[in-house]
């Protein structure tokens, strides 16, 4: 059964209008409310044959409500079909953990927690994975400065502010060409 059929079958199983599906160049995305997330993932895992969890990522839609989006990339073990399941969560909301479905979810959820600060309810060991325990920020949030913030945890690690020097380190989204998108310097701006 192809991913399109799976999406239809999942959507037919509920009358919820908040469920959306998108197809883009053969990739299927199913958007579900957070309370339906875990049952949907369980169905994908147990009934529809998505034995592999490739990745969990987070998106920060700063200014929107709810703020965050969590994205699950699923695949069949023989890679015959792939499915993307996403859900939106607010800042003070937790996502049900998928570790009981895929062991792979363990570190992916820790990474999303570490860098974006999205909590996962029921995770067996939800602690930072890339930054160190005691680091006070979630650095991939849109309101965290690119240059970083100074911190100091004696004998563990410290951080400083990187010198951006008007450099071309931030691309301008939507600029018509690469010269405008990534100039050699922004000192004159």
């Amino acid at each position: 059964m192809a991913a399109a059929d799976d999406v239809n079958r999942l959507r037919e199983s509920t009358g919820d209008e908040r469920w959306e599906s998108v197809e883009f160049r053969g990739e299927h995305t199913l958007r579900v409310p957070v309370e339906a997330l875990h049952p949907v993932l369980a169905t994908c895992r147990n009934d529809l044959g998505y034995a592999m969890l490739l990745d969990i990522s987070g998106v920060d839609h700063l200014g929107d409500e709810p703020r965050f989006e969590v994205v699950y990339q699923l695949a069949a073990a023989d890679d015959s079909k792939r499915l993307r399941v996403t859900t939106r969560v607010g800042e003070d909301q937790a996502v049900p953990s998928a570790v009981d479905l895929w062991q792979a979810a363990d570190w992916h959820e820790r990474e999303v927690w570490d860098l974006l600060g999205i909590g996962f309810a029921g995770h067996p060991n939800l602690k930072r994975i890339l930054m160190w325990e005691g680091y006070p920020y979630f650095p991939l949030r849109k309101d965290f400065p690119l240059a970083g913030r100074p911190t100091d945890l004696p004998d563990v690690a410290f951080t400083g502010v990187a010198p951006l020097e008007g450099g071309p380190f931030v691309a301008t989204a939507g600029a018509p060409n690469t010269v405008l998108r990534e100039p050699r310097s922004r000192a004159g701006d």
Partner: protein
Amino acid sequence: MVSPTSIFEAAYDSKIESNVIVTRVDAAMNWVRKNSLWPMPMGLACCAIELMATASARFDISRFGMEVMRFSPRQADVLIVSGTVTYKMALAVKRIWDQMPEPKWCVAMGACASSGGMYRSYAVLQGIDRLIPVDVYISGCPPRPEALIAGLMRLQEKVDTEHALLDQKRSLLTKPATPAV
């Protein structure tokens, strides 16, 4: 008892004379040090691949007496920081540097170790010289093995100009007095 005549004869023994070199202690020690720099490879990113290539047969740093890569800092002379130093790794690099015995030198290999490179980021130390003193910076991303060899040859030149004994005495004198336990 040795007669004056025999001393005279020994001092001008042609066999001994041809085996004696007159030099300064500094020059002799520097000569010894610079030709057997034992590197401590601090491989942190892609620069480490070039470091490995430098050590292998095609580029062969054993021509300069540096082939003895020591994976214990206690046996190493020169720390080659090759790669991106993240803040999470920074204090570990510092600790390894502190474990190396004097005299010791540090080479910042590549853009990341020298200045943070392309990582103007919350996660990356903006140059290892913010933590430990660097003797030679090597540009490149990553530098070719030839560039690393050139940098290490510059380090050899630097070692050759040092006051081997004087500098060591000074470091002993300036060492903070440890309280008696």
